[in-house]
């Protein structure tokens, strides 16, 4: 008897049987491994991307901490150079460095502004700054000694197709001025140009002065300096405070990524589970046989788990490789988005984090073993005679459904409670996660009546085979349930995220329409300035002009300096403001009357501002309170925008500069105005005309890029859905091999059977897809109403894209069809006699 043999001999037998099985079904083996690999890869990739985003933010934090503790700025202007000398020579503050930065536009890429930052390398070392990986000393010598020389970060050089030795040609300020590119440096920031301080001084501050002075001082020195600086109209602000605000802002982005990684974990887990469960289920009969031969239950269980572990290992190894490849792509996307949205330090290299690797490995092996445990236990517990039948034991299904439903209800209640009261983003995400899991649990119990209903419907219309197929599908849900749940979850994610992005995009589109309401934008050079009165005189001469709007934008002059300030004055003949919340003449009058502002809703939600509150801004004559009159919608930045009347701005800030003039054409004379404006711009150095259509396109392009990672994730979700359903339906097909054989023996033609099988799997897919519709809608609504509100402070309209919903149901049905086709063909290849003999 086998049981008297040494135990390892018996275990060998099971493993050998497994080996034989896999050798006979290589496609099956590959699919199992691929399933595990894909799940692991997806989780790892998103984790790596999320990691690199975290590192980018952490590096910014470290950089800012190491760089400077405080900075000196002058509201509305440059810090006089003498301040630096006085700091160093009289105040004994050696750790101080002037920085000059400004915006430039390039002749080759006039649509975008670049930040040119000038630092003195020697002064910068005083405040511990790293001047990026700026290369060797010879390069530095040349940078210091070459007039107008610049260094370009690699992505900037790539985007402009420039190399060391080429020249940048400025469009604004100093149109036509050529800046030799000394080198392309290893810095992955976008729209940034490095230069020596003295070069930046010639460009932006020929009369002297710094944009700011960085300091590295302790709080005692800060307290000593503050009154001295305030007497000179200067503001000392602490970098950590600014940093705290910045990291607060960026937290939303990171939490978003974490949520994506969590979602991938769930999807990946489902995928691994259904893949492995299927691989084990398929061999129930062999296990029955082995049990019949006297193999102990425990030995069988252990052997199956060992085999699964081996498979999991192969899958995990492949998944790690795939995850690294996919992750490096995602990392680039994420970093690009981050540098588009926030100014952060460069994190150029893609590094593997042990935690992410460990998580992926644990997910792969853990889910695989958990997936194998259940069927293995089942196989072990099933009496050998029953196990040798291929058909599944379905008796326990109703009780299991009740348990699942109960669990789902509890989960839903908890999720609803969390979502309704969510005070912060992590709670909202936890609620969302719980909700999805609960809904996934409810899928098999929900599908069963759906499928049976289909069966009754089909029976009423006289399609007995159809009715039989539908009822069969309902009966098989014990096996196909997890796959259907995975499919539903994947499709709901696919459609929910798609709906959210679509809604967001349409809101942004609407916002762009009214914020870019002018026909043309006349961009004014920063230096040399333009005389406003003569410009207005020239504007009046333009043919076809209906009105104009003057616009000044600058960083928000408050203690943190994050966000922006916009001061606007409209032509009396064309009294519109470019901000949606301000259509009321009364509000415009209040804005023009006194120290009052309107704030973007993101700023309002971040700082808890409401109409009637006061906002303190730093003016050259000290801190001043401005009354908040209303909120307005603004997607231009989640850092927040404050808007005020231009005349009020000038009264308090004494800054007469202008950034742009919006031109409105009389209906029908747009072309004429465009030509005239171009001629006007040509007469002024550095002045340019931009069509607002062009700006609109650029804005939407940035928007789309921001959501690329989300799109990639949607794609992964789709892939997971397909593989999950393919695996699961194969299991179901094989389970029903006997039915197939019986039906063929009863005279059904192979073609008929194939159609039947396709119908069955397609129906399952479509039903899962239908279930995904409300879940997707719910997900989208929650993302819009709760998550984005908490993360960015943005409100947006909910736009339901019916086409997208239909697409997702079709995707699910298609996945079902695809999955049904191959196993059906397999089953048909067997002669009916063999199918019948199998029992």
């Amino acid at each position: 008897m086998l049981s008297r043999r040494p135990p390892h001999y018996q275990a060998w037998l099971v493993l050998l049987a497994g080996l034989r099985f896999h050798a006979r079904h290589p496609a099956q083996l590959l699919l199992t491994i691929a399933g595990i690999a894909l799940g692991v890869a997806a989780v790892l990739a998103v984790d790596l991307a999320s990691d690199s985003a975290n590192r980018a933010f952490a590096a910014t934090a470290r950089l800012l901490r190491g760089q400077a503790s405080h900075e000196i700025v002058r509201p509305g202007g440059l810090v006089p150079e003498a301040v630096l000398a006085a700091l160093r020579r009289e105040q004994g503050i050696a750790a101080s460095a002037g920085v000059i930065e400004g915006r430039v536009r390039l002749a080759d890429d006039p649509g975008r502004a670049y930040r040119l930052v000038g630092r003195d390398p020697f002064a910068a070392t005083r405040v511990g700054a790293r001047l990026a990986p700026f290369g060797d000393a010879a390069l530095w010598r040349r940078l210091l000694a070459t007039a107008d020389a610049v260094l370009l970060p690699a992505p900037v050089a790539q985007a402009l197709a420039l190399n060391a030795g080429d020249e940048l040609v400025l469009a604004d300020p100093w149109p036509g001025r050529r800046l030799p590119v000394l080198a392309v440096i290893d810095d992955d920031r976008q729209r940034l140009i490095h230069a020596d301080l003295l070069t930046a001084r010639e460009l932006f501050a020929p009369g002297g002065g710094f944009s700011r002075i960085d300091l590295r001082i302790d709080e005692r020195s800060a307290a000593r300096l503050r009154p001295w600086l305030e007497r000179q109209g200067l503001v000392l602000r602490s970098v950590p405070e600014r940093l705290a605000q910045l990291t607060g802002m960026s937290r939303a982005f990171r939490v978003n990524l974490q949520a994506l990684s969590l979602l991938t974990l769930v999807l990946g887990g489902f995928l691994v589970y259904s893949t492995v469960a299927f691989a084990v289920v398929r061999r129930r009969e062999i296990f029955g046989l082995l049990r019949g031969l006297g193999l102990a239950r425990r030995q069988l269980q252990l052997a199956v788990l060992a085999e699964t572990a081996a498979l999991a290992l192969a899958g995990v190894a492949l998944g790690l490789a795939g995850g690294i490849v996919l992750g490096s792509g995602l990392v680039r996307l994420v970093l690009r988005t981050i540098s588009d949205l926030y100014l952060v330090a460069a994190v150029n290299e893609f590094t593997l984090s042990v935690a992410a690797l460990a998580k992926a490995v644990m997910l792969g092996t853990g889910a695989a073993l958990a997936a194998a445990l259940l069927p293995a236990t089942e196989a072990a517990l099933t009496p050998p005679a029953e196990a040798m039948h291929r058909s599944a034991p379905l008796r326990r299904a109703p009780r299991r459904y009740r348990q699942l439903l109960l669990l789902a209800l509890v989960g839903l209640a908890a999720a609803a409670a969390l979502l309704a009261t969510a005070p912060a983003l992590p709670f909202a995400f936890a609620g969302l996660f719980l909700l999805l899991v609960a809904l996934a649990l409810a899928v098999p119990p929900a599908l069963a009546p759906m499928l049976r209903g289909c069966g009754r419907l089909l029976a009423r219309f006289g399609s007995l085979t159809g009715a039989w197929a539908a009822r069969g599908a309902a009966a098989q849900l014990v096996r196909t349930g997890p796959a259907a749940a995975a499919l539903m979850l994947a499709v709901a994610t696919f459609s929910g995220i798609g709906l959210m992005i679509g809604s967001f995009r349409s809101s942004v589109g609407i916002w762009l329409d009214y914020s870019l309401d002018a026909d043309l934008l006349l961009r004014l050079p920063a230096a040399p300035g333009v005389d406003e009165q003569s410009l207005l005189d020239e504007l009046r001469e333009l043919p076809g002009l209906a009105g104009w709007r003057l616009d000044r934008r600058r960083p928000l002059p408050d203690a943190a300096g994050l966000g922006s300030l916009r001061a606007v004055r409209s032509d009396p003949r064309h009294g519109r403001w470019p901000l949606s919340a301000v259509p009321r003449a009364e509000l415009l009058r209040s804005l023009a009357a006194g120290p009052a502002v309107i704030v973007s809703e993101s700023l309002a939600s971040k700082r808890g501002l409401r109409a009637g509150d006061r906002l303190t801004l730093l003016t050259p004559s000290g801190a001043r309170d401005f009354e908040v009159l209303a909120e307005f919608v603004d997607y231009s930045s989640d850092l927040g925008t404050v808007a005020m009347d231009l005349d009020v701005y000038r009264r308090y800030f004494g800054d007469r500069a202008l950034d742009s003039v919006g031109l409105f054409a009389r209906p029908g004379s747009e072309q004429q105005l465009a030509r005239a404006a171009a001629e006007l711009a040509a007469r002024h150095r550095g002045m340019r005309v931009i069509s607002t259509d062009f700006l609109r396109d650029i804005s939407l392009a940035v928007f789309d890029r921001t959501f690329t990672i989300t799109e990639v994730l949607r794609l992964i979700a789709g892939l997971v859905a397909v593989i999950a359903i393919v695996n699961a339906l194969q299991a179901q097909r094989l389970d029903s091999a006997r039915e197939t054989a019986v039906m063929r023996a009863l005279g059904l033609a192979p073609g008929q059977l194939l159609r039947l099988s396709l119908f069955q799997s397609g129906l399952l897919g479509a039903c899962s897809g239908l279930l995904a519709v409300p879940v997707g809608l719910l997900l989208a609504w929650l993302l819009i109403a709760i998550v984005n509100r908490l993360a960015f402070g943005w409100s947006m309209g909910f736009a339901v894209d019916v086409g997208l919903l239909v697409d997702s149901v079709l995707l699910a049905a298609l996945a079902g069809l695809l999955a049904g086709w191959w196993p059906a063909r397999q089953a048909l290849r067997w002669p009916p006699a063999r199918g019948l003999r199998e029992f």
Partner: protein
Amino acid sequence: MGRWLLALLVVGLLLSAWWLSRPAGDPVAPAVDVASLLGGDASPAGFRRAQAPGRIELPRDHGPHPDYRTEWWYFTGHLDAAGGRRFGFQLTFFRHALFPLAPASADSRNQLYFAHFALTDVSRGDHRAVERFARPYAGIAGVQGAPFAVWLDDWSARSDGESFLPLSLQAGDAELDATLALRLAPGKPPVFHGNAGLSAKGPEPGNASWYYSYTRLPVSGVLLLGGEPLMVSGSAWLDREWSSSSLPPGVVGWDWFGLQLDDGRELMLYVLRDAQGRPQAVSAGSLVTANGDRVPLAVQDFQLRPVAHWRSPRTGIRWPVSWRLDWLAEPSLLLRAAVADQEQDLSVRYWEGVVDVLSVAGERRLGRGYMELTGYGRSQPNKAR
């Protein structure tokens, strides 16, 4: 079996701890290699060379010479405080032109100033040094001829009135926890080394520097050390040198001595040496008599032999910190570092500090001085902090 598993677990934990604790990329890494920035391409082409005809004219030449590549105002000195505490100080201002023929408008772009401030607390055996860099914009660094002033931040050397001397020195640093405010009074007249100030550094003409010294200037003032004000007095030495030359081929470094003997005489010696430590023919010196006359010393007039070394635990460099000096027909001298560790691990790594001038048996003190050793150990200069 269980034990093996445990061992494996421990190893795994240790490995992951190691992995996790590996230092991440340092965001405040050295910004720029200052030493090689200064070195640049060694060719002096385009700069003015120190060669005849030409002569030093004072007070004009106290001021800057921007058409030469490098120059320095090199103050060293010995200070005595109450209770027998002894200090040595070094405050050096360097001016360095990165490129020749810079456009006139770009002067502040091309000129680089750096300064070294070091303090030796002889009584406590402590030596510390710091450096600063700045370019001459916004008034944070610069030099002017009349009235004389050179400054970098709040470190400065400045004539008190129209004449060069008396002169005030000012330097302080939080890292050193020391602030120095000294007044240098007129002492001995300037000494012009080499041929009326033209001091050869290599065999070919032009490979030379303009070099003069004030070898003994009475000094008094306040040293604020660790918050404690100490009244100090002593004598200082100023070396002024400017040139565009670089070290001749084969020369790896130099040893320089500025000795103030108790009998009222001073001795300046420099030895340019090759990799084997052999002195080059251009090595030379000056003996300044008590009444201020100069006796030139050629390479054959003196011999310097290291007699003791000290290995730096920081850099591993073996510095010759004691020397035997045989010169002319005078009694031999022992020049011994007052503190062995006066290594200056700055952008340019060198040893600069106080030496005691002793009789050769070491039993009698005959004077004190400053010693500068360069080009020892690894040939690469240190990176900037």
